[in-house]
């Protein structure tokens, strides 16, 4: 299992029965692989779908049925289609239980930066800002560090924010961390990962609760 799959599998466990969730681009798109087929969850897509299922079986693609990332998808019984205004009404109006989002940087107070690197990467805003700011819970799925090994979890984001104080939980290939009023708290460790490694690769103090840390 790749590190992305590990993160996605752990992220899937965040979903409570009956919740409405949105899966951002990147790692979140593979979360559905780790949801049991009969688990009651409703997946929303910004382009106007509620009740998305798995990616379409090859050869059965429907030219009118893609997700917000452009992939051909299937729908489940009870699905509905709607326009872009209603789609974001759902997001901003408080009916989205969890947004799973990728990150360039996350701060210890839950600020999220994931849409722009000035001068380098500026493809636009998309739906991410509304998802980050208005989902009832934001779960960030990300590698713990950048490709060149620098921490992505920082005291303060250096990149322009997507939304302030929006992240509730961070899931990486090393750990699950919660954003709390008293800072980041280690909740779980990945298999075969030690506390020390996580502390070293995190750019901010991380509270380690007493007792055994659960492993995922």
């Amino acid at each position, binding site marked *: 299992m790749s590190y992305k799959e590990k993160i996605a599998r752990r992220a899937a466990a965040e979903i409570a029965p009956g919740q409405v969730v949105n899966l951002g681009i990147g790692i979140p798109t593979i979360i559905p692989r780790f949801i049991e087929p009969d688990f009651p969850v409703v997946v929303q897509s910004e382009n106007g779908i509620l009740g998305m299922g798995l990616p379409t079986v090859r050869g059965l693609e429907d030219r009118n049925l893609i997700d917000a990332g452009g992939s051909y998808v299937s729908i489940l019984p009870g699905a509905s289609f709607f326009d872009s205004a209603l789609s*974001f009404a759902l997001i901003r109006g408080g*009916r989205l239980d969890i947004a799973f989002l990728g990150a360039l940087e996350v701060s210890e107070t839950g600020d999220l930066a994931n849409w722009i690197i000035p001068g380098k990467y500026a493809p636009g805003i998309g739906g991410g800002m509304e998802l980050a700011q208005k989902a009832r819970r934001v779960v960030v799925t990300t590698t713990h560090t950048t490709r060149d090994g620098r921490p992505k979890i920082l005291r303060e984001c250096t990149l322009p924010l997507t939304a302030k104080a929006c992240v509730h939980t961070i899931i990486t290939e090393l750990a699950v961390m919660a954003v709390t009023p008293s800072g980041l708290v280690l909740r779980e460790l990945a298999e075969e990962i030690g506390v020390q490694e996580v502390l070293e690769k995190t750019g901010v103090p991380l509270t380690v609760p007493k007792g055994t840390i659960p492993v995922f």
Partner: protein
Amino acid sequence: MIDKTCQWERLDRYFADGQTVMIGGFGVPGTPFLLIDALLNSGASGLTLVKNEANEDHMGISKLIETGRARKLITSHLGLNATVIGMMNRGEIEVAFYPQGILAEKIRAGGAGLIGILTDIGIDTILKTEKQIIEVHGRPAIVEPALRGDISLIHAAVADTMGNLIYEKSARNFNPLMATAASRVIAEAERVVPAGELDPDHIHTPAAFVDHVVPIPRLTEEYGVLAHHVV
């Protein structure tokens, strides 16, 4: 499979004194008469009601108002309800009027997680009194804050068990707007079908907005054709 169907007996727990309650309907079509009765029977009082109009005398939300259960009514027009106009004139209920489409937009904005809308409707009238006015591109605009409820009571023609709703003809009106604009959305439905039976392109209110679906056992007389409106 998610199942939001709910029995009438369970509704009591959702109602409380002082709530803001949005109620669908424009005249008889789309008014959730049985949910209104449930609210009435719950005993909740000090309510703020939001509805296009107050139904007609002794019908629908007029019953809530006539029994003194509503502190305030946010509405558009009371032309067909002399009883409530009388109560308003005697100061027995506070009434806030909005242009019909602006009331719709305020509710929609509440449902859409907006802070409000900007409009020029009424800009040259007494309506602008006590409104916040700003300038946008050199043009005066009335600030109309978004409106949300604690509860919305919705009438649907068809629902599925997951909470998808379809309305019929002119019974749609404020229902799909209010179904987005409250913390708890309760829909009564004339017919409830299993999830998957409705065409996803025909659904008017997607399931995520709806918390409870209450099947209507039998349409009562109030839902019928009003003899005095037959020409």
